[in-house]
């Protein structure tokens, strides 16, 4: 397990970004340890809060030199709304960086260069621009595909061109970019770029579609999931999902510790549906008929 810190971060800035809020936080220790794909977990509601559990946010950027960590937050319900209401000078209790970062591509193409496509749905794009910078710095060709329901729910279209070799945008309602889903444009991007690795963060249905498209194109999908988490640090077992291990067996693994980034082909997508995730019958320790 990698290094992790627990620190009270001061809000340096909080700016609207379309439907979201972009926060810059002073959290020097977390900034020093973080890598793209990891997340932070914040307490919400202040000292007299009735909400006990931490809320998780992908790290949008971390700058060890100045000691900042950035996050992009969608006001979903009470906890995230509280975060979006923090103002410069306010404090947020953070634990991080948590989880495993995105791995780097290791299979260079015919030109000797590695190539990657980064796919973000909604605020799921938040961690991708930092990843893009890291990948480009090591010589990887990077293309970005961003999708959302509508233009205001896209995040980082302006940032993308600065860090990627090519950018494609889709919206469900056509209010920006191509009308449709990222999965509509992804096959073509994959073919054109010949990417060996696809990185994706966004809703579960999108991650499955990206996994399928990557498989069809012979690429590896690295998907960052968002399962409901109570602790974020590996002690509660609430964030589990069925993932196939190196031994070929499915286990209910903690997405906060073994994830949030998984190889898409190892995720048991068949277990998910209708907002639930079943334990596959062939999972290690799965309930037996008549058993527990």
């Amino acid at each position: 397990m990698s290094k992790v810190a627990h620190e009270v971060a001061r809000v340096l800035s909080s700016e609207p970004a379309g439907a979201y809020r972009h926060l810059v936080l002073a959290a020097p220790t977390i900034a020093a340890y973080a890598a793209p794909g990891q997340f932070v977990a914040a307490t919400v509601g202040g000292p007299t809060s009735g909400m006990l559990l931490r809320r998780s946010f992908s790290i949008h950027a971390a700058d060890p030199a100045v000691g900042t960590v950035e996050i992009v937050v969608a006001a979903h319900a009470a906890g995230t709304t509280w975060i979006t209401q923090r103002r410069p000078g306010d404090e947020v209790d953070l634990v991080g960086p948590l989880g495993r970062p995105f791995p780097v591509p290791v299979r260079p193409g015919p030109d000797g260069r590695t190539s990657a496509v980064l796919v973000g749905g909604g605020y799921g794009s938040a961690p991708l621009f930092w990843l893009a910078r890291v990948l480009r710095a090591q010589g990887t060709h990077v293309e970005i595909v961003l999708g959302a329901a509508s233009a205001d729910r896209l995040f980082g279209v302006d940032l993308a061109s600065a860090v990627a070799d090519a950018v494609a945008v889709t919206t469900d309602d056509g209010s920006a970019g191509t009308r449709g889903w990222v999965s509509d444009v992804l096959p073509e991007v994959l073919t054109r770029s010949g990417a060996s690795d696809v990185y994706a963060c966004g809703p579960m249905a999108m991650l499955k579609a990206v996994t399928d498209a990557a498989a069809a194109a012979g690429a590896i999908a690295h998907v960052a999931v968002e399962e409901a988490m109570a602790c974020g640090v590996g002690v509660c077992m609430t964030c589990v999902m069925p993932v196939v291990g190196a031994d070929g067996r499915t286990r209910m693994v903690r997405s906060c510790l073994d994830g949030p980034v998984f190889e898409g082909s190892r995720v048991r997508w068949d277990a998910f549906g209708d907002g639930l995730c079943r334990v596959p019958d062939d999972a290690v320790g799965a309930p037996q008929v008549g058993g527990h």
Partner: protein
Amino acid sequence: MADLTASLAGLTLPNPLMTASGCAANGKELHRFFDISRLGAFVTKTVMAAPRSGRGTPRMAETPSGMLNSIGLQGPGIDAFADEDLPWLASVGARVLVSIAGGTPAEFAQVATRLLASPAVTAIAGLEVNISCPNVASRGQVFAIDPHASAQVVAAVREAVPIHLPVFAKLSPDVTDLVTVAAACLGAGADGLTLINTTLGMVIDTDRMRPHLGGITGGLSGPAIRPIAVRAIWQVRSAMFAERLPTAPIIGVGGVASGRDALELAAAGASAIQVGTATFHDPQAPAHVLDELALLLDARGYAAFADVVAAAHPERKHP
């Protein structure tokens, strides 16, 4: 500096603070945040004989000042626990209270026996018998609601382990008469009691109009239930003062998130204190509660933690 020593059933611990079963995994994860050997004891996630996947998800819901969970006792099984988890805990110097369960009294005994074969058996400070798990013989009702079934489990475990290892029975508050269950467990050889496990609750997803948890009902925990834990500890302790129960140590658990909360459970009658759900809010919670408790005892001029145990009982004040 107050003497923090906690004495329970022959066991002497450097301090009364413990993790709560299922709220601290098996140590490695929290050890990144604080040295778990600082705690009086580390209580492990309940382990059963075979590996278990636990339930599907969602497994949790946040509730006002609490949470609901239905993990379904996910775990690696006793072999992996005895061969890997326990030795790791031993390697960092933790005193371990091992939480065990089974679907039958025999499975409890089997798990306890296998545990004794661990290379790290000396790290075991005691056993916590989690009887809030489904009893195969009664269509999935938990042992803990039935004094007789509870006693059978405790007797089976007590028989399986050497007498120097204390056995604590962890009770559920969801019974009409807690003292009767406590009496059954102590009568069957339990050296002490852990009070309380979660209380049964439920949340409905009003968007989907169906139970929020995959497992339908779940266990409610956190500060919301602290008054229930304090009441349970008080009732059982009062029954001991009234000699309706043999005197035995109580480990208190339920909603503790601060030194004041720990003091409250101790004053109600607990000789040691576990911190569960608060750990999800603050991964250093067990250590923070310990530090706060120590400061509080000093600030109030207590010479020893032992002085506050059951201190709110009039019988203790005017014996």
